[in-house]
């Protein structure tokens, strides 16, 4: 038993952090994005300023007054500086967040075992993190914010990232592509790295909308649009299909084109965006809470939990010594119905098991303890599970469980 206990309470922090990758990856991605924005600003200003400076010098040789142009440059540089300051603030926030999160994960490494109270505390923080994440993913933004605030874990959850993500998703579902295209531009490098087709699908949608109008002018625009954005697709079939669309009206019955005109495409784009977003931030597509729950429900579930017979152990109306089983508790009982139960290779029963004439098995100590609390009735034993069943002490028999 002692050995067994040692192995089951062993805490292997490295493998324990399976669910916690996004915790560090999200701020890192945000930091990189912030940096790229900075770089873009600086490069742009550098080009403009140096060109203007050159032009001004040339013009001044020809006798024109350079002051106005210099003032313009100074204004531009001041604007750049302000932008950099904003980005610096963002950088500070992100770095502080990362630091806090590393520290939080580091805490786990310092906990000696799963039986330690510190692990309990840590795991409660984790549950709150997972809950906030779940609420955010489902768009329950205010609940998520409130929970994060009350539990003081705002630095350990990515409310802003999800709020933005949810907004873009909502816009897509309503047929608005602008925000999503901006997002693609902001993340263009990372998107290229993961070979994302999100942007080209959005561009295709713009094209479809132009063709849908059936106006000649718009169709010409559509063709220009297609040449500019759709030709970069590696699959030429994609391009041909788009080109073919020009010959079919919006009410076509041809399956191939009907599906392009369909409003379902927006739902598709929304889920494509979500997938892309989550991949980019290393967020699992299934909410981690759900992953943890489905593993946990199985690990805890026993054949007794949905049995029509009340279990002798951990049932609601017996045993004031033990808590009700969490799977049998109302909160999770229905949810756990579909998951497999845990695998066991060894019986696990209370010490010194005895059986009552009705077939119920209890540990002798618990049965005696229960009846003692009840106030012994001379020579009688009550079944803890059933208040109406009394037996003579001599009817309690030893049972052998191996």
């Amino acid at each position, binding site marked *: 038993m002692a050995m067994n206990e040692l192995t089951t309470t062993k805490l292997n922090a490295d493998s324990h952090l399976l669910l916690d990758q996004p915790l560090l990856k999200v701020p890192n991605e945000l930091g990189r994005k912030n940096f790229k924005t900075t770089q873009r600003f600086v490069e742009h200003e550098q080009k403009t300023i140096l060109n203007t400076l050159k032009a001004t010098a040339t013009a001044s040789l020809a006798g024109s007054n350079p002051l106005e142009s210099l003032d313009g440059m100074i204004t531009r540089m001041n604007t750049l500086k302000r932008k950099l300051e904003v980005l610096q603030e963002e950088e500070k926030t992100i770095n502080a967040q990362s630091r806090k999160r590393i520290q939080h994960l580091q805490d786990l490494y310092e906990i000696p075992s799963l039986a330690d109270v510190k692990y309990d505390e840590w795991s409660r923080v984790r549950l709150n993190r997972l809950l906030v994440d779940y609420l955010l993913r489902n768009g329950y933004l205010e609940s998520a914010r409130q929970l994060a605030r009350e539990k003081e874990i705002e630095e350990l959850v990515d409310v802003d990232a999800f709020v933005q993500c949810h907004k873009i998703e909502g816009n897509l579902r309503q047929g608005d592509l602008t925000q999503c295209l901006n997002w693609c531009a902001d993340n263009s490098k990372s998107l290229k790295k993961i070979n994302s087709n999100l942007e080209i699908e959005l561009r295709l949608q713009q094209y479809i909308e132009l063709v849908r109008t059936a106006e000649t002018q718009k169709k010409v625009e559509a063709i220009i649009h297609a040449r500019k954005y759709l030709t970069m697709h590696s699959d030429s079939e994609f391009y041909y299909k788009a080109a073919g669309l020009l010959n079919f009206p919006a009410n076509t019955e041809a399956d191939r084109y009907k599906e392009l005109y369909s409003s379902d495409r927006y739902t598709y784009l929304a889920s494509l965006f979500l997938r892309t977003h989550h991949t980019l931030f290393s967020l699992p597509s299934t909410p981690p809470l759900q992953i943890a729950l489905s593993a946990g429900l199985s690990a*805890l579930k026993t054949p007794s939990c949905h049995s029509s017979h009340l279990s002798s152990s951990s049932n609601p109306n017996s045993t004031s010594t033990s808590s009700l089983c969490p799977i049998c508790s109302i909160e999770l009982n229905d949810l756990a119905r579909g998951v497999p139960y845990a695998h066991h290779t060894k*019986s696990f029963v209370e010490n010194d098991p005895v059986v009552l004439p009705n077939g119920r098995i209890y540990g002798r100590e618990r049965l005696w303890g229960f009846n003692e609390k009840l106030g012994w009735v001379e020579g009688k034993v009550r079944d803890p599970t059933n208040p109406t069943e009394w037996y003579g002490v001599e009817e309690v028999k030893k049972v052998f469980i191996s």
Partner: protein
Amino acid sequence: MEALLEEHRRYDNVHLGHAVNDCQRTIDLLVSARDTIAAEPQKASIALAKLNNPVKQSFDKIHDDLKAINSIQNKYTKALDKKFKDKTLPDIGNDVLSSQSRLINRAIAMHLLREGQFSVASTFLQEAEPQPDAADGLMQDVRMRGMWERDIANVKLHSEGLQQQFAEMYHILHELKQQRNLDPAIRWARSNSKNLDQRGSNLEFELCRLQFVALYLGYGLHNSPSMGAVRAWEYAKQEFPSFQQRYTKETNQLMGSLVYSANLTASPYRQYFYNDSAWEDVANSFTREFCSLLGLSADSPLYIAATAGAIALPTLVKLRAIMKDKRTEWTTEDELPVDTPLPPGYQFHSIFVCPVSKEQSTETNPPMMMPCGHVICKESLERISKNSRFKCPYCPSESHYQDAKQVYL
């Protein structure tokens, strides 16, 4: 994790602050050139020509600042990837929960209530209700939508009652733990005494005993602590008769302790009076009883399940990887194919594994006890008895199939 922290510490000295400063330097260059030109317009061309290189250099400086950040970012990202090298995002397949968001929401709502987060719970129940203009996807199946709404309504209805219950629980716990006031707890125990007795709970007595101790030790009696014994005696006279029959020994002991009121610490009853965890223990058993009467476990099931999940997950993920590798599927859908050991506190039910078939007992294959007291599963029993007299696999005794009876763990 230390290595990662080390890597991240580099950001302390390398940040956009430098770029901001260098940007200011560029501005200074431009401003001072402007001032020169404004003062001596004839020198404009020379001043501008002289300005070109410094501005270029100062931009180069900004780029250097950025490069430094970039290099640290790359190193940190690399360290991060290394840390989570073998850890693909967990995929345990068999995702039955995805279609159960309704039930997950219910579990979350109840969790928030039992943790006393009433305002979050109420926001959540409002938000979880589908908006009238929600996504088209939701509108497609009107029937489903109706069910979902009804269910949320049920949760809401249910949760108001539940919220009141938990509010009461937290009130009682607060009085008990923070104020050391046992009255609300005792009142609650009295009004539920029948149910508590059925469960064999002695909560009411425990509470009253603690009250006796508290009075004896003179809680709330700052001026005359010596009055404690008298007050305890009065309390005992009033309350203990109803416990006399069931807790004879205990009440006698408590009364006996009154004799030692002058020097309690040296008395044999010391343990009842100077027990630091007594209040915490009583609070815990109160919480357990309170939740049990509501049909709920004492600790949040969501918490226990999520924690058990995190503990079991590495095993399940490994299993998933192996199965993917070997292109096999689970043979039994009802049971996990591997052991997922959990720490001792996570076992709630007894488990019976048939010593003959090595299978876990189930409702259709229940444990059966032979007259000798040995237990095997029904299917094993059928197999070895073959409808005739047979010998128990574990002892010499012989019996018939019909002599065996089902037992309940």
